[in-house]
């Protein structure tokens, strides 16, 4: 079982996957910068639509990590450090996602 999990970790750590993982993060940050300078609702929507697309791509990789960490039941320290390394990437994306919400006053509807 542990061997199988290790193999899966190696698949995720496959260079191309990790490169994409980094690239998504960078694209995401760039989009956020673009959104800050935008003053049109149309552009804002287009940007957030792109962000959603990126988030979906990100979570596809992300969920494979979660899947492995859900199955882990081992006290192997090397195994944990590998999981932690991948988990850290996940947390960074999440942080970026949360940071990007521009604080807006909730539009309240009057009757």
């Amino acid at each position, binding site marked *: 079982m542990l061997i199988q999990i290790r193999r899966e970790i190696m698949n995720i750590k496959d260079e191309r996957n990790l490169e994409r993982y980094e690239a998504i993060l960078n694209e995401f940050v760039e989009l956020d910068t673009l959104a800050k300078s935008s003053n049109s*609702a149309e552009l804002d929507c287009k940007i*957030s639509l792109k962000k959603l*697309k990126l*988030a979906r791509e990100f*979570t596809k990789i992300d969920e494979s990590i979660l899947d492995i960490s*859900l199955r882990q039941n081992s006290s192997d320290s090397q195994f944990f450090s590998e999981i932690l390394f991948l988990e850290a990437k996940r947390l960074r994306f999440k942080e970026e996602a949360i940071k990007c919400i521009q604080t807006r006053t909730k539009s309240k509807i009057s009757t």
Partner: protein
Amino acid sequence: MHSDKNQIKNQHLEESLTEFWDLFFTDQYEQAFEAANRIESFNHEESDLILELQAKVLLRQGQFKLAYQTLSNSKKENGFKLFLDFLLNGDPKPIIEGVPKDSDTDSLLYKSQVIALSKIYWGEQHLESLNCYESPDSILEIVFNRLIEAGKYDKAILASLQSLELLLEDQLLSHDIHLPIIHEQFENLIKLSSKAKYTSTKAKLYLLKAKLFKDRSAAEDAEILFGKEGNINGLGEVYMTYAKDFREEDYYQKALECFIKSKNLIGQGFIYEALASQALINGEIKSAKEAFTKAQEYLSNGGIFENLGLEIQNISLLAISGKYQKVKESVHDMIKPRIPSFFIAQAYQILANTIIQLGEDIELAKGYIETACDIFKALRRYNQLLYSQNIYFQILLLQNNLDLINKTGQEIIQLATRLGNEEMKATKYLDLAFVTIRVSLEEGILSETKISEATEYFKKAITLYQSQGNLIGEADSYQAMGNMFTGIGKLEEALNSFITAKKLYSAEKAYLQAAITDTLVGILMLNYVVLNKQTYPIAQRHFEQALIYFSKENLLDLNWKAIYYLADLNHKYYVSNKDKEGFELYKNKADKYYSEMLVAVEEFQEDSPIMSQGGSFVGITIEEAFNKAYQFFLSIDNEKKAQKFRRHLN
């Protein structure tokens, strides 16, 4: 002259179309259909357009087949026709192959929805087998940009909404990552909706926001906005959200009234479906069946997803009514090519449970539930996966592989933590308590330490349920604790636990569970306590209360068992006191209940012949019950009646 005529004609058509779209976007279906009918057609294109508009209205109302038939008279081939075909037959291939990248906006939008739905219900592998690697998000992006360029803000917003709505079904495990971005998208769309023509478009945004973020004030905003535009159907949607998402069940009736007024059949069907589920949870089987029949009436005109959803609910109803043979037949009938894996997994989940109930091959049940888990995992339906894993865990509990039990338990706790499902964590505490006791019993030393360790687990579960305000969970914990105390002979503690469970179930109107607890109290008295003037009436009262419920709800399996327990109770009480005066009464009672049991078993056997052959895994079997009845009648010299049971035994 001709050009003047044409100009007038075009202007007239434009006005008619504006009238149609005004009605369509504000969900006034009947009026929109009539408006489409009033459009004059002078050529094929215009006739086809009328048919398409009518079909769009029919689809919104839930008349999928009629929409398809209407459109089949049109010569025009487009994405909408292929979309309808997909909704009815579940084959994404025609639209994937028939709508290239440069197609019209509507066709592309339908294609992106088909791909998204296929991913959700069949999984990515299915699309890959059709050589489809297109991303619905990329298609939506193209569509959205085109619609914005054309100034079609309502359509652009609604297209985005549909895509967000699909997120309700998808990727729940990553909601922590998605939610902030979805939130941002909502805020941006709300800002954009100031350019939309219809207030209803904005209202739809708020309504979905309410559902995704469990934000009741957003639903209230939607209610105000729909009300402003007189959108009755929209109001129905809001009321349904109050009822379903915010558990304010009184709103179901209001929603139903709105859907009747707006002639929304699918909306009415969904309400009856929700009412049936609610009744099932409450153990009101008859009400569930009634609501389900109504749901069938309205949803059978829908597409493949609506029909399969109905079929799953039907199978669940059969399972809960104890018609296990029919469950097996229905599941095997349902599994055909093209059926979405999501429904196959649901069916396998019920089948695995049924096999356990029938006392058949545990390995077979394990195989089905493992397949269901694999499917849910591949589809990234983590909530469903959690429940399937839990069934797998329950099956493991029937066997003795404690390592596997612990490992699976840990996996479930981790997944439940990720999903924020505190209730599932609580159930695992209950199971840990159970396992602790079982391990000790198997080792032959059940120390007080182990008992208090298990009791601690129960307390943890109860505390978790209390913090969630979940009375049913709390009751389940007490019931499980009662079972543990029964098993280790702590009868007073067992009785107290059962009585607390019963109180909580009754407070929550969970009648089925309350009746089962009644049966457990009766069994406790019957099997573990000396029957006397104090204990006999307690057992009798609890069995009778359970029987009233089982018989009223036509739960055939539980019904005959409750009658058997009553017969056995009176039989036992009579035997231990037969030389005393006045105990003839209990002999007569036992006679009466055993005779009634014969009729109840025959009724049950008509429904589930296989189960009656194999006997039940849980509780008493028919063979054991008939043996007892046979012995009883022989002991009172009623050879004729005894033979009736003998015949059955042979």
